[in-house]
């Protein structure tokens, strides 16, 4: 399948040489784009495979709602090209620094505030060209919205953190920028916020993001910010509807944009000022999950995605992490040490293991065989993701 690809691209040849050499010596390579999140996931000190030289947008036709680019392309180039045509990446990947790359964003698989209505990054991946641990360049998926030929291997890359294959190129679906947006804010307790958000989400209200920030003790009042986005008429008619339930104030558009950007880039105080022995924990939870008693009840926590993604700071030790993981598991979710303070032992496991999840243990063997199929010599076995 054509990807605007040239098989004997010198940059790709260089990746192949590096991969084949690593396979021969059985030493893993740590794939790196901008390195803006070298701290995310389990750490490793293996030799870097730098993707940045393989850069550029290969194809972008706004009427197809698809952009195809090389993995090393700066994320900001992609968003700028889209903005010119009034289009966006609806999952809103944070950039965290100038250097963030397209491939890094996909391999990290994370999404920003828009995820709850727009879908996650994986939902937008249509196809990918990868290089496996044998140095083969392989294309999966494609550039069209509907494609069910073969297993959906391109969608295994999001969130794989460089542990499965090297992403060379990817095609992602993009969307038109919403015609209108409005941001509303009010004060209310966590439990009430969670109930309202889920109720609204079941109604034809163009809710596109939400964030509640407050103290971890559940009866305290916190600040709820919600974003509406969609057709002009839809946004206009939703505001009185929401205000009939709870009194909100509409934020000035500039203030609103700054808030959502700071949330996406984790610049709000709930994320920053991490103490040396502290960890920023992330919980992913089902929609039904009410307030949880987390940490010592004094610090702030942030609830995004109508409560399905929760952030808070707590001590880094294993006992704390185990308790948090168990709590998440009981409620049908999982937890990770998203970011750790500078004095934390870097060798600590950051993620929930499959074996720690109900009904997932048997998948550990499947995952291991899958990795071995793509990467028999362990070139990408950096254990950045367990």
């Amino acid at each position, binding site marked *: 399948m054509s990807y605007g690809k040239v098989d004997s691209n010198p940059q790709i040849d260089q990746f192949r040489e590096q991969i084949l050499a690593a396979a021969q010596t059985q030493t893993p390579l740590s794939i790196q784009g901008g390195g803006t999140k070298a701290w995310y996931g389990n750490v490793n000190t293996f030799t870097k495979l730098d993707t940045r030289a393989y850069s550029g947008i290969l194809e972008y*036709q706004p*009427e*197809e709602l*698809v952009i195809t680019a090389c993995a090393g392309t700066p994320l900001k180039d992609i968003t700028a090209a889209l903005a010119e045509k009034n*289009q966006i990446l609806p999952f809103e990947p944070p950039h965290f620094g100038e250097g963030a790359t397209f491939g890094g964003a996909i391999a990290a*698989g994370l999404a920003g505030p828009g995820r709850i209505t727009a879908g*996650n990054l*994986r939902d937008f991946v249509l196809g990918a060209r990868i290089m*496996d641990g044998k140095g*083969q360049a*392989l294309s*999966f998926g*494609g*550039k*069209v*919205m*509907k*494609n*069910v*030929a*073969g*297993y*959906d291997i391109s*969608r*295994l890359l999001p*969130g*794989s953190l460089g542990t499965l294959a090297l992403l060379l190129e990817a095609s992602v679906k993009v969307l*038109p*920028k919403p015609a209108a947006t409005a941001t509303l804010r009010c004060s209310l307790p966590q439990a009430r916020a969670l109930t309202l958000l*889920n*109720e609204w989400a*079941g*109604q*034809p209200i163009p809710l596109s993001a939400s964030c509640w920030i407050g103290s971890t003790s559940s009866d305290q009042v916190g600040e709820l910010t919600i974003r509406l986005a969609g*057709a002009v*008429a*839809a946004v206009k*008619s939703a505001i009185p509807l929401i205000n009939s339930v709870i009194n909100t104030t509409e934020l000035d558009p500039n203030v609103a944009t700054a808030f959502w950007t700071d949330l996406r880039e984790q610049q709000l105080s709930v994320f920053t000022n991490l103490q040396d022995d502290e960890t920023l924990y992330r919980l*992913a939870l089902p*929609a*039904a999950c009410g307030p949880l008693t987390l940490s010592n009840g004094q610090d702030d926590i942030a609830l995004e995605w109508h409560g399905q*993604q929760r952030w808070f700071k707590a001590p880094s030790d294993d006992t704390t992490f185990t308790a948090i993981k168990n709590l998440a598991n009981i409620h*049908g979710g*999982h937890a990770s040490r998203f970011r750790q303070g500078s004095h934390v032992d870097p060798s600590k496991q950051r*993620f*929930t293991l*499959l074996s*720690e*999840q109900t*009904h*997932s243990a*048997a*998948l*550990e063997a*499947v*995952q291991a065989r899958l990795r*071995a*199929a*793509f990467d028999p010599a362990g070139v990408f076995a950096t254990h950045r993701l*367990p």
Partner: protein
Amino acid sequence: MIPMNMVTPPPELAAITALQSKLVEALRPILPEYALLWEPEDTIPYECDGLAAYRRMPLAVALPETEAQVSQILKVCFAMQIPVVPRGAGTGLSGGAMPISQGLVLSLAKLKKIIKIDPFTRTAVVQPGVRNLAISEAVAHLGLYYAPDPSSQIACSIGGNVNENSGGVHCLKYGLTLHNVLRVRGILMNGEIVEFGSHAPDSPGLDLLAVVIGSEGMLAVVTEVTVKLVAKPKLARVIMASFDNIEKGGDAVAAIIAAGIIPAGLEMMDKATTRAVEEFVHAGYDLEAEVILLCESDGTPEEVEEEIERMTRVLENAGASGIRISQDESERLKFWSGRKNAFPAAGRLAADYYCMDGTIPRRHIATLLRRIQAMEKKYGLACLNVFHAGDGNMHPLILFNGADQEEWHRAEDFGTEILEACVELDGTITGEHGVGIEKINTMCVQFGEGERESFWGVKSAFDPERLMNPNKAIPTLSRCAEYGRMRISGGKLPHPELERF
């Protein structure tokens, strides 16, 4: 629809009978008597799925009623090394559920409970045999519905939808099965129960749910699915626009999307189709138009009004020769009736029709339609075009007479050439029906050896002994080599520049 000319002759009859007795004996303690079928008169309804050209009799058919039974059946088959073909409602159009002569058909049709409906989290937990439409019916009173709507939704099962990653008219705006399923509970070939995804927004490890969806019954038997439900739009209206040439119609599709509009549905019919269906449904279609577009808008009344106005403007600028907007629900349904009845209408025009399923980038719609016109002449067969224009998913219906072997082969070649053209235009050989047994050869056109080897790697990761629905969807190296030779020696290899093996 398609003639019975592909019946595979059964292998050694005696050996089969012995194996059958052994299997039946082993399964008897697990299932009630009525849930295990092996006499030919009982198993014959299972010899094919919706693609009736490919038929085969299985060793036996098991109809478990509980997840525990499914797991036990798989354990028995695993121990005996007997292949298993999972089956939902059997509406698949690519032969994915076609039996294997030395294998068991595992029907999930009796697992049809809706386990939980949760309006607060907008989810439903259902067993795999629940029909697609039954989900929307069960939640209608809550103002919710399940968005992916394959045309077969009255009959097809959610387990089948998961395995085919099915979509329908609404998937341009609301996505495919992949985008609407949170969690799948399944059983691996060795009988182990596992869960892919979860009710949380993401799960630990690699995203195996993304691979299981669309895996055509080859990786795990699905025993439970959690689907997302969405708010039923308050209103829907549709614009019917006519164009006096194909290019204008194709450009109009691109223009709507380029204008930043994602319609709830964007479907196209060519003249041959409108003429065929008008006789059938009397919807008042413009019979002079070369193509007709149906563009639907849904949402709140204000949103719909705004969007209909914008779409009308775009369609006018794109050179529509006629525009009609549905004034009420009955008119909307009337406009859609022809689209929905295109298949039966095709069935009235010819003894048989062969439905293809390729996807191309939207901008190539007119190019492909023109090519198909040329192919109609080349093969001497007529073709109706009615398709999901919004996502470039084409469904050419090739008309032929199945009583004539030679004509069926011509229809097959015609179909293959269309799929090869889709690949050449940067598209794919299947948008929603799956590869199954039908398109296994064209997989050699779309994928090279390395990709196919990776597919086998995925298969073996889930099912190391390759017992679950084996030899479907992913062609072997030798199969592709043979296919390549066949196409070349026929002297009609259409795109020699494409990598084949």
